[in-house]
């Protein structure tokens, strides 16, 4: 008896019982259900919710693998065991097995905890509510490990995942009903609950905090560096990375958001498969560029002295803002969430524009939040229904006017 048949038997056995949704979820995750519809007209399409989610996960996989290499690379670079990349994207210093093994050792537990805890909560709620398990967590579970620092303790991640899934999603009615992006809710929770683990210069490189402690205790260690570029710029320091290294992603940061190149590949997959809205991505880009240009203009006009605390980030060229921090990752993978984003085409332009615009504003003006993109997206998530409402009302009004003119 094959796996499919035994799952089917299992499902029949538990039909109508409390645990049924859990078994159904396993069954339909692995196979197409073997029951057919009986009446009514149905539209048959290949891209159901599960297929959509899986495509997003595929688009995220390059970022995840790169993140593993990068976690190892940053660690060994900080301990002085390897030298910095010298040969563009395919530098041998970066693509080494030892980097991948170390990175996987650090990053895979994050993935396992994120999925394990999140799906447990989803299953629990499905059983309590007596409905089928929803697919919503598949993408969230992949996003979460990519947007946290590599050294985050697993128990903190578990608490944050429980909080994010329950308060961010289930209380609103589950997948499709949530106002806020659950992955960003999880990050926001971590950020406000455990700020020492989510910001500063010792969390972005694996083991940096440990080495700092050893250094403070008078032990002989090589280096404790591990500041992100945004962190350095906020303190008016130079950033010390080559432009192309930033684009390729050989920089410290959250696990999966450093490589702008791979994020662009992910964006291409999402746009090509028509899963994410290119309007939101493009308008987010435009918003960030506009805000960056305004700040650059202020610096060029000499309205701000170079002693000012904002100078470092304000004088950063607008195009550089797009490559550093989590802006690109946020705009491509988080802002485009079809549930929490704007739904109308015009609304998407407005929604995306303000995400980019506000991200750069928070980034520059609030040194406590060196990366503002997650706050900007959460803020615009809240405004998305309002934007849609006015776009729809505006459309109705315009068409009514047209009708009046015709009848007059």
């Amino acid at each position, binding site marked *: 008896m094959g796996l499919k048949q035994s799952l089917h038997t299992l499902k029949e056995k538990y039909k109508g019982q409390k645990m049924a949704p859990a078994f159904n979820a396993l069954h339909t995750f692995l196979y197409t259900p073997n029951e057919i519809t009986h009446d009514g007209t149905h539209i048959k399409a290949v891209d159901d919710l599960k297929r959509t989610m899986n495509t997003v996960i595929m688009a995220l996989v390059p970022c995840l693998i790169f993140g593993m290499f990068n976690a190892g690379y940053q660690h060994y670079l900080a301990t002085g065991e390897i030298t910095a990349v010298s040969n563009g994207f395919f530098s041998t210093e970066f693509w080494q097995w030892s980097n991948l093994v170390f990175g996987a050792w650090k990053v895979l537990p994050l993935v396992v905890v994120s999925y394990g805890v999140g799906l447990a909560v989803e299953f629990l709620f499905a059983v309590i509510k007596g409905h089928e398990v929803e697919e919503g967590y598949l993408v969230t579970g992949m996003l979460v490990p990519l947007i946290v620092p590599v050294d985050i*303790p697993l*128990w*903190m991640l578990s*608490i944050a995942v429980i909080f994010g899934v329950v*308060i961010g999603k289930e*209380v609103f009615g589950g997948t499709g009903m949530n106002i806020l992006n659950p992955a960003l809710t999880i990050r926001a*929770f971590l950020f*406000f*609950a*455990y*700020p*020492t*683990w989510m910001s500063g210069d010792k969390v972005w490189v694996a083991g940096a905090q440990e080495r700092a402690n050893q250094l403070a205790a008078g032990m002989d260690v090589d280096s404790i560096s591990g500041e992100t570029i945004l962190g350095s710029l906020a303190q008016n320091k130079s950033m010390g990375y080559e432009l192309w290294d930033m684009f390729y992603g050989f920089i410290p940061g959250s696990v999966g958001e450093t490589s702008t190149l791979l994020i662009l590949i992910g964006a291409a997959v999402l746009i090509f498969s028509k899963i994410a809205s290119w309007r939101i991505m493009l308008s987010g880009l435009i918003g960030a560029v506009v805000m960056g240009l305004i700040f650059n203009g202020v610096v060029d006009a000499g309205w701000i002295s170079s002693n000012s605390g904002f100078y470092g980030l304000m004088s950063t060229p607008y195009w550089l803002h797009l490559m550093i921090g989590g802006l690109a990752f946020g705009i491509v993978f988080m802002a485009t969430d079809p549930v929490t984003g704007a739904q109308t085409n015009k609304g998407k332009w407005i929604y995306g524009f303000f995400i980019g615009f506000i991200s750069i504003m928070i980034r520059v003006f609030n040194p406590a939040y060196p990366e503002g993109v997650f706050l900007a997206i959460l803020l615009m998530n809240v405004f998305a229904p309002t934007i849609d409402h006015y776009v729809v009302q505006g459309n109705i009004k315009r068409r009514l006017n047209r009708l009046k003119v015709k009848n007059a």
Partner: protein
Amino acid sequence: MGLLSKKDSKLILDPLSDDNPITIQVLGICSALAITAQLKPSIVMAVSVIFVLGIGNVVISLMRNIIPSKIRIIVQLIVVATLVIIVDLILKAFAYELSKELSVFIGLIITNCIIMGRFEAFALGNGPWRSFLDGVGNALGYGVILVIVGFFRELLGSGTLFGFKILGDSVEKTGLYAIGYENNGFMVLPPMALIVVGIIIWIQRSRNKALIEEL
């Protein structure tokens, strides 16, 4: 309760559960968010409100037949303000440190919707004894939520209760902190109080389906 008739004891007991001012009537939320980061201020606030609302209800009830209805809000405000100043002075005299911590919020008891709400809804139409019970009952219902929220926020946010280090010392890494536990900084911020109150509302309504509003 042998002391009280069934009808009277309802006045005390209802606000504690099915007619709670915070979780059911959703009144007095601002102070519930502002002062519940620690347990001690929560309890002082609860006791202050019990005092103000208990006495205030009696005073308003005694005057209910002589207050011209056009200026009743002003009269009510004067009564609350007087009582609040008494509370404030008592705190300054006997618990100065605490009064400094709470000063603004004690003053803001005047604007606590629960108090004006009970004056308007109950004391203006009932005798002094029943008004007293209603005032104490509602203030208790308010206080219970405050203490629950304060308990969780102080325990999880600072690892202490009444300032005692329940979970160990976070600086010297003893107790729970030795195994890597850390305080949840989010708990100390006001938004978390809203979420804790929300969770209490959620639990209460899922236990008693009759409380769920029709959509």
